[in-house]
C-alpha cells in the first residue's frame, strides 16, 4: 500500500514542534543552571585601598659660589663663617594625601661639587602655617658630605677630578608622611663648610651641581560604611 506523502509531512511537522519545544525548555534550564556564584551582601568588604607608585626627577640645578657671596663677591674673598643657600620647593598636594600611608620614600641624587670648599646639603620639610621646620633630612649623618674640589696652581677647580656623588636617601615613613601631610614646602639647604679662615679665589665656574629625584609608594586607605535594605 502506498504511503501518503502529505500525511508523512504532517507527522514530521509535529515532531519538529516537539523538538522545538524541547529545545526551548532545555535552553530555559540551561539559563537557570548558569549561575556562577552567590554574592552575599552581608559579606561585602568595606575596606578601600588604592596604591600608587611614583618615580620622577624632582630638581636639577647649580648653586653658584658667586651667587652665595651676593654683593660681597669679589675676585678673592675670605669666608669667615658658614654661608648657606636655600631653595624652596612648594608642595601643593591635594587633601586626599591626608589619608595616605607611605610605604616607602627614596630620594635618589647625583651631586658634583665644583667648589674649592666642602659643603653639606640637607632637605628641610617646612610648614608655613606654623612657620616651623618639621624634619631635617641630612645627606650625610656626620662630617662633610661634599669634599672640596681640587684646584690647579692658578686657583681654578680641576673639573675632571670632580667625581659625582650618586646615592639614594631612604626616608623613614614618619618623616615621609610629614612631608605629604603636614609640610607646605621642601627646602634645599646647602652650607659651605670652612674648616679655618682661608682665602678662596672666586669665579663663576665654582658651583655645586645637584640633581634630586623621588621614588615613593603610598596607599590610600579608607572604609565605606553602607547598609542595604
Amino acid at each position, binding site marked *: 500500500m502506498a504511503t501518503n506523502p502529505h500525511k508523512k509531512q504532517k507527522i514530521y511537522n509535529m515532531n519538529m514542534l516537539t523538538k522545538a519545544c524541547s529545545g526551548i525548555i532545555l535552553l530555559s534550564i540551561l539559563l537557570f543552571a548558569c549561575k556562577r556564584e552567590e554574592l552575599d*551582601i552581608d559579606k561585602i568588604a568595606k575596606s578601600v585601598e588604592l596604591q600608587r607608585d611614583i618615580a620622577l*626627577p624632582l*630638581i636639577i640645578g647649580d648653586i653658584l659660589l658667586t651667587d652665595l657671596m651676593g654683593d660681597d663677591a669679589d675676585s678673592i674673598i675670605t669666608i669667615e663663617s658658614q654661608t648657606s643657600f636655600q631653595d624652596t620647593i612648594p608642595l601643593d598636594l591635594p587633601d586626599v594625601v591626608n589619608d595616605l600611608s607611605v610605604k616607602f620614600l627614596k630620594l635618589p641624587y647625583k651631586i658634583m661639587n665644583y667648589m674649592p670648599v666642602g659643603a653639606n646639603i640637607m632637605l628641610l620639610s617646612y610648614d608655613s602655617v606654623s612657620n616651623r621646620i618639621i624634619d631635617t633630612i641630612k645627606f650625610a649623618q656626620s662630617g662633610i658630605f661634599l669634599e672640596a674640589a681640587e684646584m690647579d696652581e692658578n686657583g681654578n677647580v680641576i673639573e675632571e677630578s670632580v667625581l659625582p656623588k650618586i646615592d639614594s636617601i631612604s626616608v623613614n615613613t614618619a618623616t615621609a608622611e610629614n612631608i605629604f601631610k603636614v609640610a607646605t614646602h621642601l627646602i634645599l639647604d646647602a652650607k659651605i663648610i670652612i674648616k679655618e679662615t682661608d682665602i678662596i679665589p672666586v669665579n663663576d665656574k665654582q658651583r655645586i651641581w645637584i640633581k634630586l629625584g623621588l621614588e615613593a609608594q603610598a596607599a590610600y586607605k579608607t572604609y565605606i560604611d*553602607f547598609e542595604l535594605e
Partner: protein
Amino acid sequence: MKNSYTKTFATLLISGLSLIGFGQNNLMYYMGNLPQSYYLNPATQPVCNVFISAPLMNYNLSMLNSAISPSDFFWYDSSLDSVVNPFTSNASFNKFIDKFDKIEHATFQGGIDILSFGFRSNSMYFAFDISAHTQQRIEYPKSLVEFITKGNTNNSVYDLSGLNFQSLNYMQFALNISKSWGDIFSVGIRPKLIYGLAAIETQENDITLSTSTDEWQLNAHSATRIAVTGLNIPVDEDGLIDFEGDFEFDSTLFDSPSNIIRTMNKNRGFGLDIGAHFKPVDQLQFSASVLNLGYIKWADKPQSVLLDGEYTFSGAEFSTSDTTDAFENIFDTLRNSMSLSGNDKPFKTGFNPVIIAGGRVFLTQRIDVGLLSRTQFYNNYTDQDFILLANFRPLRAFSFSMSYSMLGRGYSTIGLGWSVKVGPFQSYFISEYNPFRYDRIMKGGEPYKFDITDGFGIPAVIPVDVYGFSIRAGFNLVIGCNRAKKLRQDKPMFNSTNWMF
C-alpha cells in the same frame, strides 16, 4: 550611605548593559529567510524571490566595551570570605587590571537601511541597498590605564601608541550579485560606493613615555585628521584648526543637486565584500566571506593636525641666580618642545576588514547547527570571536535562531533572533551578546530582590562576562518565498533539498 549599594548595583548593571554591542550581527549569517543575511556573506541568496525592505525601518545598533564586564566589579574571595571589589585591596586591584589586554577599545556602531531591495533571476540574485552608517571607537592601551590608576615606577616605559580615536560617518550604496550552481556552490560579490559625511581619526600615533627618577622622556608623533563634507573648517595662520573661528557649511552646497553630488564626490570611497558557500553533501555546508574591504578618501576641505616632538623632563630647574619659581616653566618648555603643524592634504580612512569562516550541519530539514570564526582586523589589534549557531524553522512563517559566543574573556553570551512572516510582510529581531551566566546577589541567605511593588521584586543578578550588545531589527516585504510549492509540481517535497538556505 543607605541604599548606596542598591544604586551602585543598579548603575553597574545599567552601565554594563549599555556598554554593549558589536558591529555586524553574526547570528543572521545562516538566517537565509532573512534577506539581510547577505550582508554577512554576499553568496547568500535570500529564500524569497523578491524582497523590499521597509524604508528607514531596518536598523542595527551596537556598543562594545572590550575590557570589563559588570561582574568584574564584584567577586567572592574565599581567602577573605568576603565579596571584594577592585578597590578592596592592592591585590584585588591588580586582579582587576590584569583583565585588560594590551589594547582595549570601546565602540559604538549604528546603521539604518534607507532603501534596499533584491530579486532572483534564475540562478542569480541581485540586491541593492542604500544605508547610512556611524561608527565611533576609542582605543586605549593597558599601559595608559596602569599609568593613571597605579602611577609610574622607576625605569618604566609606557607605550601609549594604542591611544586612538575614530569617528566615521558615511552613506553606502551597495550592489550585491550572487550566483548559485544548484545547491552545491554559490559565490557572491558586493561592491560598494561610499560617500563620506564626517570623519575624525587619529592616525600614525607613536607615543612613548619613559619614566625614572632621573628623567621623564616623552616622544610623540601623532596626526589627527578631520573632514566634514561641505563644512569649512577655519584655520589660523599656522594652518592649525581655529576652534574659535566660524565653522560654516558651504553656502552654495544646497543651491543645486549637482553641487551636492560634486561635493559628496570629493569624499568618496569604495568597498567590497566577497563570499562563497559550498555544500559537498546535502547535510553539510561550508562558508567563508571577507567583508569591509575598502577606504574613503577625504578631499573636501580636509584638515590635519600633526604633533611631533620629544620632551625630556630632568627635574624642575633651579639656580641661585634665578628667583623664578622652579616649576613655573615646565609646561612652557613642554609646549615649546612639541611642534604642532597643520595641513589640508587629502587623507584616507580605512574600514576594519572581517573574515568569517565556518560551516553548518543540517540535523533535520528544519534544524541546523553551525560554527563560525569571526576575525576582525584593526590597526593595532585583532578581535577573534567564535560563534556556535543553531537555526530552527518549525513553521514556514516562523524561524528562530540562537548563538553562543565568546566576546571578551569567556564564552558566556547568547544571541537570540526570530523572524515572522504574515502574508508578504516579514518582521525580524536579533539580539546578540545577551548575558548567559550571572552572579546572584544574596542577603541573609535569601536571594536579594529589587522591589518593584509590594510583594514583587526582580532578583538581583550581575551578568558575567558581558562586554557587548548588538541588535538588528526591521521589516521587509517578501514575495515568492514558497519555493517548495513551485518545486512540488516537479517532485515530492520530502525529497527536495531547497530548504538548505
